[in-house]
């Protein structure tokens, strides 16, 4: 199975992990990037990226991640495809990863770039109808909703941008938002408001998703306490993210109340030699551009740590 000790392990292969890999490979640090599938992360769920510098025409999430992967590989990025069961941190020196097949790997420094995944609503019908009308990825599933009515739940960048994308296939898209205004970036809002196929239901929560074998309607509850239903064939739940932290020792890493990992401006966590970059970090803004910036910082900080320790 190859080596079982590296100076630096990068956990995760989204924008942060691939950037950390690029910088580590160029610094000729003895490294490995561990990813459970093919690299790419959440960007793979994005139809179009319009705010990453250097792409004046925009770029598809898919293409951007292929380019980031190819870029890091050009400098001999070392990657393996394996799923980590747990990360064990013991004292200042022991950093161990245990994989799902019980094999182990140790490292001197660790950069956590495990990212985040779509939040679930946690309402009746959601789990039962997942993949049968309930979706967390408009870009993936939009073509299945040709000429249908769908609901998008959420009001942030992802929700509004995906609602716009869905109108290429669906006949009508209704954005259901619990507040009276969208949180999405203004230019994304402008595009959505100009799209005649998008309707809005404000100040309203979805309390259940109903249907026999597939989604037939969503149950709504407005601010005044009025209940109603909306007939839709699809319900796209795009309400922010939850950290991919199942494998991490959260208490030791001083995770915040949501389970994101606190790190200082050099990306150092409270454990020496352990760094966090990208969406897993406890922070206000989660974008590709700052994930990459944090990852570059993390590699430089890790390099200092590796040079100066002991």
């Amino acid at each position, binding site marked *: 199975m190859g080596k079982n000790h590296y100076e630096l392990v990068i956990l995760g292969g989204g924008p942060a992990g691939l950037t950390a890999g690029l910088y580590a490979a160029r610094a000729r640090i003895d490294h490995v990037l561990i990813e459970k599938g093919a690299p*790419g992360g959440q960007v793979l*769920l994005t139809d179009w990226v319009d705010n990453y510098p250097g792409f004046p025409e925009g770029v598809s999430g898919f293409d951007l991640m292929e380019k980031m992967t190819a870029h890091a590989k050009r400098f001999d990025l070392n990657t393996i495809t394996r799923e980590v069961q747990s990360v064990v941190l013991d004292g200042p020196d022991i950093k161990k990863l245990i994989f799902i097949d019980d094999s182990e790997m140790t490292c001197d420094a660790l950069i956590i770039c495990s990212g985040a995944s779509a939040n679930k609503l946690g309402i009746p019908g959601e789990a039962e109808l997942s*993949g049968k009308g309930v979706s967390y990825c408009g870009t993936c599933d939009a073509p299945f909703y040709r000429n249908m009515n769908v609901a998008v739940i959420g009001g942030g960048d992802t929700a509004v941008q995906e609602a716009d994308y869905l109108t290429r296939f669906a006949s009508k898209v209704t954005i259901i938002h619990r507040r009276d205004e969208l949180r999405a970036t203004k230019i994304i809002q402008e595009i959505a408001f100009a799209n005649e196929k998008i309707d809005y239901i404000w100040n309203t929560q979805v309390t259940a998703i109903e249907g026999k074998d597939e989604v037939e309607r969503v149950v709504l509850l407005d601010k005044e306490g009025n209940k109603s239903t909306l007939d839709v064939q699809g319900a796209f739940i795009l309400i922010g993210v939850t950290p991919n932290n199942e494998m991490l020792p959260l208490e030791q890493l001083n995770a915040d109340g949501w389970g994101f990992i606190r790190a200082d401006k050099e990306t150092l966590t409270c454990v020496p030699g352990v760094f966090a970059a990208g969406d897993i970090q406890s922070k206000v803004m989660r974008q590709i551009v700052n994930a990459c910036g944090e990852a570059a910082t993390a590699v430089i900080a890790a390099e200092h740590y590796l040079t100066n320790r002991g």
Partner: protein
Amino acid sequence: MASDKVQQISDAEFDTTIKSAQPTLVDFWAPWCGPCKAIGPVVEELADEYDGKVTIAKMNVDDNPVTPGKFGIRAIPTLIIFKDGEVVDQITGAVGKSQLIELINKAL
């Protein structure tokens, strides 16, 4: 390291494939789907690890509209495990290898 153990199947081959003697895992995917791509290497690994015990097949939903329609597939990647031609269970999204192993084990 693409595995030659993964069968690419079409609508026409579907029934024969799932009625074979051993359980069959079918990965419904499309080339434009990012998470499908992410899960690809894991499916290939499983094909090597379960060689001789479970048939691992992939169906492109763009080229094969009939079968996904029959199983009400509205999200990809969806992976369905079949035994004796019947659905045992299914999972949607770019899940981890451990969840896919759990899915396969339901048919073993």
